[in-house]
């Protein structure tokens, strides 16, 4: 159908349900121009600023110990937050998609809740819980446990903001797939765990990967929530995005943009992998969504 339309256009024939070529050109230029101005240009600026003083200066930024510590902390936080939300996503999707119970749609709404909370508020709630003036503040101080201005707070805030990513990919897909395949496996004598590992998991593997990619990108890149709970202690509680802020505020622009370019690279890899998954396995991801 689409091919036929374009073939006709080649001969100066225009179907009734299409705009004039001139209008098409104008709209295309407007759309591409807007994306170029607001999205491609900032992306290009990251790499241009990082390389402004040449490759050696760019590379030197990564010899800084505080920078390396920030990279390590970011990897550590993601390595805790992503698996935690992965286990939750699988458990929630199993309970929600494979069983009928009252209050299900409320539960789905509650799982999506962190997406509608400002990152700063996400950090604030943990300060209200564990900060020095918080609910458990005195108890934590008496027992010498540090959560706020320490790694546990950063991990908690990151888990909060990345909470829905994996669950929301899995739930609609597993609901669509129903329970018949699992019932067949159980009837044939497989254990519950084996049914899950050999029937359910292979059926959702691409959606799972999709959710993990998005969850990981946000976990490594989260700024607002982490900024509230971190305390910005160099070498100890600085993740990469926080380190970008510190370097930038110290007017170390090459350093800030060098670390930023690493994060931008991560974003590009995530987008590429995401597009590949949508293109190759679109049918095996949940039907309705596109982001």
């Amino acid at each position, binding site marked *: 159908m689409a091919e036929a339309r374009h073939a006709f256009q080649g001969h100066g024939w225009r179907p*009734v349900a299409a*705009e*004039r070529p001139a209008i098409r050109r104008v*709209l295309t230029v*407007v*759309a*591409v121009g*807007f*994306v170029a*101005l607001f*999205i*491609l*240009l900032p*992306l290009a*600026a*990251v790499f241009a600023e990082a390389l402004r003083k040449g490759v050696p200066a760019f590379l030197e930024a990564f010899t800084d110990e505080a920078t390396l510590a920030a990279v390590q902390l970011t990897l550590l936080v993601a390595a805790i937050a992503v698996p935690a939300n992965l286990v*939750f996503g*699988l*458990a929630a999707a*199993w309970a929600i998609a*494979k*069983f*009928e119970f009252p209050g299900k749609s409320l*539960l789905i709404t*509650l799982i999506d*809740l962190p997406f*509608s*909370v400002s*990152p*700063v*508020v996400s950090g604030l*709630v*943990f*300060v209200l819980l564990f900060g020095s*003036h918080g609910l458990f503040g005195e108890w934590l101080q008496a027992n010498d446990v540090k959560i706020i201005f320490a790694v546990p707070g950063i991990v908690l805030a990151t*888990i909060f903001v990345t909470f829905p990513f994996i669950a929301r990919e899995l739930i609609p897909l597993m609901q669509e797939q129903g*329970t018949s395949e*699992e*019932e067949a496996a*159980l*009837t044939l004598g497989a254990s*519950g765990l084996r*049914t899950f590992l050999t029937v359910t998991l292979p059926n959702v593997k691409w959606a799972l990967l999709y959710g993990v990619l998005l969850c990981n*990108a946000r976990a490594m*890149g*989260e*700024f*607002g929530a982490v900024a*509230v709970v971190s305390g910005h202690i160099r070498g100890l509680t600085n993740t990469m995005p926080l380190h*970008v*802020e510190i370097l*930038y505020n110290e007017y170390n622009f090459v350093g800030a943009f060098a670390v930023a370019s690493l*994060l*931008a690279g991560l974003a590009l890899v*995530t*987008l*590429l992998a*995401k597009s590949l998954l949508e293109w190759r396995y679109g049918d095996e991801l949940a039907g309705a969504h*596109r*982001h």
Partner: protein
Amino acid sequence: MTAFALTGPASLRRAIAIAKPSALPGFGITFGFALAYLSLIVLIPLSLLVWRASGLGLGGLLGIATQPRVRAALETSFYLSFAAAALNAVFGLVIAWVLTRYTFPGRALIDAMVDLPFALPTAVAGIALAALYAPNGWVGFWLDAWFGLKVAFTPLGIFVALTFIGLPFVVRTVQPVIAELDREIEEASATLGASRFQTIARVILPTLVPAILTGFALAFARAVGEYGSVIFIAGNMPFVSEIAPLLIIVQLEEFNYAGATAIATIMLALSFATLFAINLTQAWSRRRLGHG
């Protein structure tokens, strides 16, 4: 099926009492774990915020909200988010239309890059926009030279950052609806003598309105809470270019928990009201058009 329930351990039997009987195992443990994890990470911390706010009372809450600096920050966040979401509604619609209906070289690349604001860490976007729109930046220099327009470190800079962050919400909400439009209706409209403009204005746009409104609301909700991409370009001057999320952090640094809690609660209420409006819009469009 019931035999399975009866032979299971006590916890399983209790869980089965919640769920309808099923041949599949594992409801009790997965439901229990999911609910416990959800409560610990999300529900308890958020209810603590609401509980703290209720301790202030409505009078206390309003008292903080109407303090000049707080009010200025809330208004800045609200109006600029509204303006940015409105700009995105217009250009997001054009982008979604062009990406769905036309073919041109680089279409797939542009389509993929629309999601960049979802994937790019906000701090990275923030310093990149600040560098671009600074007086000596690629864009800021020319805007200043040609129009005398200063963007970075003014409210206009906040507007630019909020536009960046909100664009994919509109495009990704409208795009699937355009893809599902029935072209035969457009052809029928044209056959009945409508010009292309009339068909777009009277046939296509009314069908897209719910999706555009939803995209607008999502972009707005995100923009109101946005922090990372804004603070580098905003200048952060109290009463001029200070956004509400930043003021929460300022209050926290002064150990003014009541102030931070009050602003956070107002923002939370605003985003829930937006979500509620989205749900109403979708229910309305289902009734009117017979589909979501």
